[in-house]
């Protein structure tokens, strides 16, 4: 299922969470809690056996695409692409949120760095990713937030494969952490809506690597329909346990050394598995 062992994946999840905390604390800005909720989702995807990429040739035509629509999760994207060999993790630490670097506060399309799309405003990347899937033979995965699905145009995307083109190579991944910037999110029957529009709908725990691996494979093998992969996640997962799944931490890095230590302690308490 994965290119590396489950244990190695868990270790990567641990070290990437540590780097996220470190990176965003040092930068004094960035969206830590969103990034923490996506760690397994992103690692599980890029380490899936089928997933093709080439860090030496980012524009490789046969690469599988990962669009990030909820662009504020880009710290995770930057660290994972370092892990994949597009550049060094040190580049991310020195460049994050600094002028004229590839590591802006929201992603800027840069294929040689593995950054598939520029993002920022919500509900736009999902459409671009879907459009992209119409004209590539490879798989296109798009990561979107649940808050992003409050945008009417995101919800409209669910109906489009029905009357435009089913795009079986398209997988929409929902980071369903039930929180947005200033409020809780309840998308109601959104999975049922997708089913009615004939998506392959898969609902899993977004921190369960095995479930993720199986779901990605199922999406990859699907021949007729796009896949809507609803991943139940916890915002702030694996950081300060006091903040996990709680409102009020969106885009708010640890404010001082004490808060930073609470994040690290929370992470270490869960251990390396």
């Amino acid at each position, binding site marked *: 299922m994965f290119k590396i062992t489950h244990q190695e994946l868990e270790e990567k999840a641990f070290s990437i969470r540590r780097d996220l905390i470190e990176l965003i604390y040092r930068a004094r800005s960035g969206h830590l809690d969103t990034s923490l909720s996506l760690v397994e989702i992103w690692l599980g995807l890029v380490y899936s056996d089928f997933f093709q990429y080439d860090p030496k040739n980012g524009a490789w035509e046969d690469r599988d695409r990962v669009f990030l629509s909820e662009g504020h999760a880009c710290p995770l994207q930057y660290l994972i692409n370092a892990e994949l060999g597009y550049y060094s993790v040190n580049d991310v630490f020195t460049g994050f949120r600094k002028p004229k670097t590839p590591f802006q506060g929201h992603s800027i399309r840069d294929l040689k760095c593995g950054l598939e799309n520029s993002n920022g*405003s919500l509900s*736009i990347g999902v459409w671009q990713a879907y459009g992209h899937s119409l004209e590539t033979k490879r798989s296109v995965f798009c990561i979107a937030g649940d808050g992003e699905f409050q945008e009417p145009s995101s919800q409209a995307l669910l109906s489009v494969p029905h009357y435009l083109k089913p795009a079986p190579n398209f997988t929409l991944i929902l980071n369903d952490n039930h929180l947005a910037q200033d409020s809780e999110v309840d998308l109601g029957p959104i999975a049922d809506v997708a089913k009615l529009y004939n998506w392959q709908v898969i609902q899993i725990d977004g921190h369960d690597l095995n479930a993720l691996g199986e779901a990605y494979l199922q999406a990859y093998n699907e021949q007729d329909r796009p896949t809507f992969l609803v991943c139940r996640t916890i915002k702030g997962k694996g950081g300060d346990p006091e903040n996990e799944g709680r409102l009020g931490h969106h885009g708010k890095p640890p404010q001082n050394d004490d808060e930073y230590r609470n994040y690290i302690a929370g992470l270490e308490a869960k251990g390396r598995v």
Partner: protein
Amino acid sequence: METYGKESLREAFGHALVDAGAKWDDLRVLDAGTSNSTYSQFFQRTYPERFYTPGINEPGMVGIATGIAMAGNRVVACDMSVFLHHAYAQIRAAARQGSDMHFIIAASHTGIAVGPDGGSAHDLTDLARMRLVPGFNVLTPWDGAHVRQIVNVILEEKGLYYVRLNRPKVPIFLKDPISFEIGKAYRLREGNRVTIIASGDKVYNALEAAEQLGDGFADVIGIATLEPLDTDTIIASAKRTGRVITYEDHLCVGGLFEAVAGVLALHHPTPMRRISLDRVFTTSGDPDELAELYGITTASLVKECQDFTKS
């Protein structure tokens, strides 16, 4: 003035896309439910498998178009101009992907030339909106022949392009279309009393006015690229005549007038006047009737030039 028939800019564009479809296999055309108004339906009929419509869904159309352009295809997204307001965030996001792609937005039904559908349907701010998005080339073809030529050039060179088309049949006056270069303004007639700077199909009216004003009176500059603007040609003409009038079917806000005023204010302050619309919502009416009502006819330009040069 000699003309060679009449054709609407949108119709010329529709035909040009069909020709372009034969030349470029990778060309994809999209529309948001207005294909029989923009005439993208010509392409749809010829190449149904290369045409996409998400229905009446402008944000979706522009988003999908962007994604297709990011896959390496040549892409043209067509719509009636006023509806593109819905897609402004997506247009900005498209430009944010960078200009290393073939991405064209074609807007038909601009200006009061739309006529009886009324003020809700007249898009008189499209140039202002598109000028605000870094990276976009903002193009204003003059006649049907010009449209065909421009389509060829912009499908050849990668970049982000906005093409302003419109609804009514307008005179074809370019017999042998001058070689179109992006970013170049064209001096179409020489004069030394006043400079007329016109864009889109108003270039024809500007030449008509210059003819009526007599030999050597008006220097006429045709603008087919509003962004990036050819400042050298504008400044050179302003230096020659000392008076500049801009002429467009657009509000006075954010379009040709303010673009030219900005250039001259910085580089060669010159007395200016404008033929354009005040910052108002317009009314229903026949296009000619509306041109009269809002003072953007050839006759209004002639009168303004005469008045301007009295002093």
